């Protein structure tokens, strides 16, 4: 007989920072989502002329006033540092009130420093050390002055969610007093070639849950959240990370389980860890990649989990705005959940115009919806049958 999970110590999210194609700080990112900013463009940073699809959510120039001389010339590390710079500004504080040894860093990524590997193998062998997947996370830790634990997670496109769960557990276990957790990934030839080869990229726009959806586009971003034990967090906070669940599909190396059983188990595990009933969920920030396979599978799993309320819980996907940000996606979506609660608005799903009966959910469409969700659910699916879900409570 299974017992209910024990109630875990609550983990507060006290600040967040982002760098995305639609905004390089939290406020611009949020207003971009609300106003329908389109971050998709022709990729310019590397050659794409030989690829079937050369569009994506590319960040054209890093705008934050960081002293880049202190940061390795590695784009992935620089995205992380940009997001951390924003997080520091959002937190409105100088150095944290924790010892450097007690500040942890947990980042998720699908690609790590692979672009450095590309460059090392072509003409810059000295870059090889940065090609390991955990190199950008350590680069971020050095920039932060952290001498605490540095962990890199790679559950493909669910990495950001897994990283938040591991960061929370690191705090509960007492390994750190503050954890900066989230995810990142960049656009590079490696990943563009790969997804082009899989024919998963659309030549149309990204249309999550739309009848005409024909695939995803990739985007680059980094998103970080500052986690503290709630009793030490102080009054200023975005919300609380209540639960994180994960599950394997054991189905296919690249495609999701056709019945969505893995993401369903991950959602149920997150709800159980959060001690929250599905009936109490006010909003779902969905994975919603806009591939023909993902969206109906995810919708069916959501309907099973949400039960009779499935048609009444607003759902959105932010991937229409700047593509699938891979390792950053789940952390961005967690931030969207918390900002929706703070601002009382749920961003519309950019690209969704014609609803698909196979994705029978209350998708927020056309314009933001005025609603202040208290409890939100975020879902993530990745290559290799990686599934993860988060339950968050807005402040």
């Amino acid at each position: 007989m299974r017992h209910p999970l024990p109630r875990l110590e609550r983990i507060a999210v006290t600040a967040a920072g982002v760098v995305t194609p639609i905004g390089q700080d939290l406020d611009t990112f949020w207003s971009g989502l609300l106003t329908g900013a389109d971050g998709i463009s022709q990729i310019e940073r590397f050659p794409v002329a030989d690829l079937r699809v050369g569009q994506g959510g590319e960040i054209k120039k890093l705008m934050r006033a960081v002293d880049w001389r202190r940061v390795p010339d590695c784009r992935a590390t620089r995205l992380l540092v940009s997001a951390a710079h924003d997080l520091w500004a959002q937190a409105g504080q100088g150095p944290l009130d924790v010892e450097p040894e007690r500040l942890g860093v947990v980042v998720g990524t699908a690609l790590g420093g692979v672009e450095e590997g590309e460059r090392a193998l072509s003409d810059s062998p000295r870059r090889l050390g940065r090609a390991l997947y955990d190199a950008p996370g350590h680069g971020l830790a050095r920039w932060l002055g952290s001498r605490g634990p540095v962990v890199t997670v790679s559950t493909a496109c669910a990495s950001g969610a897994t990283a938040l769960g591991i960061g929370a557990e690191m705090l509960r276990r007492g390994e750190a007093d503050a954890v900066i957790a989230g995810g990142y990934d960049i656009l590079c030839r490696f990943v563009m070639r790969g997804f082009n080869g899989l024919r998963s990229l659309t030549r149309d726009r990204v249309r999550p849950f739309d009848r005409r959806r024909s695939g995803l586009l990739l985007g680059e971003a980094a998103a970080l959240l500052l986690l503290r034990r709630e009793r030490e967090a102080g009054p200023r906070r975005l919300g609380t990370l209540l639960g994180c669940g994960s599950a394997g599909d054991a189905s296919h190396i690249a495609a999701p389980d056709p019945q969505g059983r893995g993401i369903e188990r991950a959602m149920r595990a997150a709800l159980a860890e959060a001690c929250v009933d599905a009936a109490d969920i006010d909003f779902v920030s969905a994975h919603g990649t806009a591939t023909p396979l993902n969206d109906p599978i995810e919708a069916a799993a959501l309907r099973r989990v949400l039960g009779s309320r499935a048609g009444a819980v607003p759902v959105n996907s932010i991937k229409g705005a700047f593509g699938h940000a891979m390792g950053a996606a789940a952390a961005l979506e967690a931030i969207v959940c918390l900002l929706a609660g703070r601002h009382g608005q749920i961003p519309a799903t950019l690209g969704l115009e014609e609803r698909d009966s196979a994705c029978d959910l209350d998708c927020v469409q056309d314009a933001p919806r005025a609603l202040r969700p208290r409890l939100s659910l975020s879902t993530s699916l990745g290559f290799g049958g990686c599934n993860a879900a988060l339950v968050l409570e807005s402040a």
Partner: protein
Amino acid sequence: MPAPAMRAPRIRALGLLSGWGRGAAALPLDASRAAAGRSMLTVERPALDPERFRRSRRECLMGVAAVRAMLEDAGLGPEAIAGERTALLFSTAAAYAPSNREFIEARGGSMYFPYTAVAAVPAEVAIEFGLTGPYEILVGGSPATMRCIVRAAALLEAGACDRALVLAVEVFEECADLFESVRPPFEGPLVEAAACLLLEPGEGVLTFERLRGGKDGGGVRGRLGEMLACEPLATLALARETAGKGPVQVNGSWRGEITRLQWSGSPYRTRPRAA
């Protein structure tokens, strides 16, 4: 600050394949001497069903073979671990490097892109054994594997699973030249390995701590060679042979972080949890 303690899981079984051979008995007393001038000891591509694994890479097959070795050690069939009550925690520092390199250099030209993901190894293992429970993947050396064990202990203690597999795989052969050019100076050989630990709920005490200026894995590395993420599991395999029921301690290091994992047989006393 004292190392936080948690309820230790019980080690039910351990499967180890390495460049030295199968199991702890194959491990040498001195890696450099046993290597006899070889800079690398490799593991042959396991002979698994060629149709089922037609697109799989060597590192994936090594992961599957390590789980089979663990099941043999446990005296269990694969049905004993199938399902949603088994967690899978995977750790590697660099098992993705050969696939990434091949894809970048387009050697062979037809590599299936999803196999470049770190997640490819646990995916093949999960598919082969029907593992649908909690699922996490960490990238790094010894400390990453130790954290997988700690995560497994947390999941077991919370009741999120009934058993947990901690799997680590490292392959070097296809990127031997690259590893030689970037790894820190170490006299011993690179040793490919795949190892799988089966953990079940236990009653002892597990502590995990980060050490300042303590001993890193140098001692055991001198014995085993450089196994990166597989090192803690190989160390546990050795400890099971020699330590009996006494405390078991594993040290390891990666990128300047030195960590220690310690099992003690003393009964674990539950701390009150904050609500």
